């Protein structure tokens, strides 16, 4: 079972000096926070805001690479969570064949946002994500924390 997720926003995690991508399912019952690095966060942020930078960023280059040969991103799936590290897969079609490529979730999300491909999370990932941890995060969340990437 996989659940479709939407990218709800990005926030800065001052405790770990990292960024968190917030994924949420359509009926708002499950939430998946994914920790990403600064450059990945900035790439995801540009895609969320729909800003075209003057020069192609790495994920724009990645999209051009696939576009050049008419390869299409069908979907990306956050597949596993192991020792606080998420794993993802990118599903592609190219010349009537399907391919699955392993990826970091940050690359998968940055590419999905640029190719309008849906993002899914496997049930086991959502289950593993402890609700306890989430509650703690939600308590600390302030509305102004969202979209605070430009600092």
């Amino acid at each position, binding site marked *: 079972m996989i659940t479709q997720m939407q990218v709800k926003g990005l926030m800065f995690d001052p405790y770990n000096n990292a960024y968190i991508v917030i994924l949420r399912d359509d009926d708002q019952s499950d939430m998946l926070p994914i920790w990403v*690095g*600064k*450059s*990945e966060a900035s790439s995801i942020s540009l895609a969320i805001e729909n800003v075209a930078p003057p*020069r*192609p*960023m*790495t*994920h724009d*280059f*990645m999209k*051009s*690479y*696939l576009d*050049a*040969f008419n*390869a299409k991103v069908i979907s990306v799936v956050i597949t596993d969570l192991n020792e606080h*590290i998420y794993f993802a897969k*990118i599903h*592609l079609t*190219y010349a009537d064949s399907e*391919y699955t*490529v*392993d*990826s*970091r979730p940050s*690359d998968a999300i940055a590419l999905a946002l640029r190719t309008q491909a849906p993002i899914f999370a496997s049930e086991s990932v959502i289950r593993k994500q402890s609700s306890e941890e989430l509650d703690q995060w939600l308590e600390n969340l302030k509305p102004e924390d969202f979209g605070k990437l430009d600092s």
Partner: protein
Amino acid sequence: MMEEHATQTTHPLIQLVINRVVEDSTTDTRIVVLTRTDDESEHFMVWVGASEGDAIRCALDTSTTPRPMSHDLIKSFGEHLGIKMERAVLTDVKSSTYYATVFLENKGVVRTIDARPSDAMALALRCQAPIYVTHDVWQRRSGQNLDAWLSKLETKNIGAQEEV
């Protein structure tokens, strides 16, 4: 269609090889130092961002990162789909910004894509693809006393590390 045409330039491309990535700690940027394959004493430098520079350094050290980085993912797409990177060419420079073109090949069809030099170089290193600069861009490269300037920077970096 962006198929390649036979290039009829009076000046052939100059092949470069990435020599090292130097940290410019004052501005949080990296300097990629390339040398000519036919004359190692001739330098060409490209300023890139910190994370872009690190992506190049990773490939240069052939150090395996625990997780695949973005350019490793592009390489992986190529391996799955049968797309080969033929070469990277630094094609233009406008107000100190360099432009690169990446040549890709699949089943005899060549496509070119526009790239930042940092992405072109990071992918070229991972795919063992050669890097070239056009004669025009080579002549317009910035900085005249590169050696003096570089040695000063590198001495400063070494000094900073020794200061405990």
